[in-house]
C-alpha cells in the first residue's frame, strides 16, 4: 500500500497485464494495484495543481493532458478499458487538440495579467474551493462506500461487449439524444465561428491601390540571418546599420518579453549599448548577409530612419 513497495518486476508485470487487455478474474494483484494507484494519483494531482498555477495557457493544456493520461490509467485499473481508450482518444486526442488550436488561433502570446480586479477574490476562491473539498470529503466519510466487487462482475463477457449491450438496450434513447446533441453542437460551432462578409471582396485593383497608398509598396523586409544569430527573430539591418523592426513577424516579437530588438553587434564590433537614436547614421556597419534583406526596407521606415 505504500510507495516503498514499488518494485520494477511488479510494475513490469502490471504493464504486461494491461497490455494484454485480458482482465484476469481478480484484476491485478493488490500491491501492484496500490502502487499504480498512488503513482498516478500523485501525477494527476500534481498536473492539476500545475494547470491551475501555470501562467501560460499552453502549459496549462500540457498539464491537463498529463492529468487525462493518468486518469486513463486509473480507469484501466478499475476495469474500464473502453473508457480508458475513449479518454485518451476523445480527451487528449480531440478535445485537447481543439483547445490547442484555439489557443494558437487567438491568444498564444497573451500572458494573463496578475492584477486582481476584485479585491480579495483569490483568497475567497481558495477558501471556497477548500470548503467544497472539505464538505465533499465529509459527505464521503459518512457515506458507506462498499468494497469493490470482483472484476468478473463488470468484465464477465468483456467490457466492450457489456457496454454495448447496455448502450443499445437500456440506454438506447439517451444514446440517440447524444447524437442529436453532437450534431447541434457542430452546427452551433459552425454558425458561431462563421464570419459574415460585411463588405464586398476587394478587387485586385483596389488591393494594389491600397498598397501604393500605404507608403510601402514593396513587401516587408525579411528578418536578418546573421553569423552570430541564426534566427528569424533577429531584425534585419538597414543600410545605415539600424535594426528594422518591421522585418520581424509581430507574432514572434510579441512573444519576447524583453526588448524586441537585442543589441545587434556587427562582426568585429562590441555589443555596446547604442548611444545614438534610431536615426544615427554614423556607424560603419557592413552586415554580412543582411544587406540584401535590408535593402527593400528603406521606403518602409519613414518614421525611424529617414534622414
Amino acid at each position, binding site marked *: 500500500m505504500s510507495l516503498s513497495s514499488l518494485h520494477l518486476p511488479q510494475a513490469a508485470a502490471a504493464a504486461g497485464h494491461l497490455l494484454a487487455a485480458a482482465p484476469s478474474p481478480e484484476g491485478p494483484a493488490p500491491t501492484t494495484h496500490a502502487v499504480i494507484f498512488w503513482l498516478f494519483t500523485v501525477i494527476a494531482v500534481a498536473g492539476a495543481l500545475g494547470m491551475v498555477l501555470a501562467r501560460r495557457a499552453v502549459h496549462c493544456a500540457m498539464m491537463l493532458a498529463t492529468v487525462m493520461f493518468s486518469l486513463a490509467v*486509473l480507469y484501466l485499473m478499475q476495469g474500464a478499458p473502453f473508457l480508458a481508450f475513449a479518454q485518451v482518444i476523445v480527451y487528449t486526442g480531440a478535445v485537447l487538440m481543439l483547445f490547442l488550436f484555439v489557443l494558437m488561433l487567438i491568444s498564444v502570446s497573451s500572458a494573463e495579467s496578475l492584477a486582481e480586479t476584485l479585491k480579495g477574490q483569490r483568497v475567497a476562491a481558495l477558501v471556497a474551493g*477548500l470548503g467544497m473539498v472539505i464538505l465533499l470529503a465529509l459527505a464521503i466519510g459518512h457515506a458507506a462506500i462498499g468494497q469493490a466487487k470482483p472484476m468478473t462482475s463488470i468484465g464477465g463477457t468483456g467490457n466492450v461487449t457489456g457496454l454495448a449491450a447496455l448502450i443499445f438496450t437500456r440506454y438506447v434513447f439517451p444514446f440517440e439524444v447524444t447524437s442529436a*446533441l453532437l450534431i447541434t*453542437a457542430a452546427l452551433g460551432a459552425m454558425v458561431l465561428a462563421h464570419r459574415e462578409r460585411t463588405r464586398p471582396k476587394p478587387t485586385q485593383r483596389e488591393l494594389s491601390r491600397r498598397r501604393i497608398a500605404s507608403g510601402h509598396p514593396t513587401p516587408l523586409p525579411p528578418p536578418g540571418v546573421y553569423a552570430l544569430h541564426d534566427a528569424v527573430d533577429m531584425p534585419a539591418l538597414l543600410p545605415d546599420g539600424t535594426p528594422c523592426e518591421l522585418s520581424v513577424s509581430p507574432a514572434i516579437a510579441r512573444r519576447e518579453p524583453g526588448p524586441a530588438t537585442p543589441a545587434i553587434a556587427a562582426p568585429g564590433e562590441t555589443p555596446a549599448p547604442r548611444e545614438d537614436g534610431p536615426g544615427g547614421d554614423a556607424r560603419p556597419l557592413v552586415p554580412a548577409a543582411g544587406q540584401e534583406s535590408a535593402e527593400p526596407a528603406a521606403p518602409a521606415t519613414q518614421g525611424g530612419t529617414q534622414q
Partner: protein
Amino acid sequence: MSPEYYVILSVLLFGIGGVGVLVRRNAIIVFMCIELMLNAANLAFVAFARMHGNLDGQVIAFFVMVVAAAEVVVGLAILMAIFRTRRSTSVDDANLLKN
C-alpha cells in the same frame, strides 16, 4: 484498492478544478478547469461502477464524455466570436451587460 480512494481522488481533482475556475481569468483556462472537473466526476462514476459491480456507471461516464466534447466545441466557438470583436479572452473584459 477500495473505491473510496478513487472517490477521494476525484473529490480532490474536482476541488482543484473548481478553484481554477474561480481564480483564472483567461477564458480558455477556465474551460480547461471545467474539463478537469468533468473528468473528476467521470472518475467517481467509474469507481462507483466498480463498487456496484455493474456497467451503468461506465455508460454514464461515456455520456459525460460526449456532452463534454459538445460543450467544448460550442464554448470555444463562442470564445472565438468574442475574441474577434473584443480582441481579448479575459473574462474580465466581457462586461457588456454591466452598466
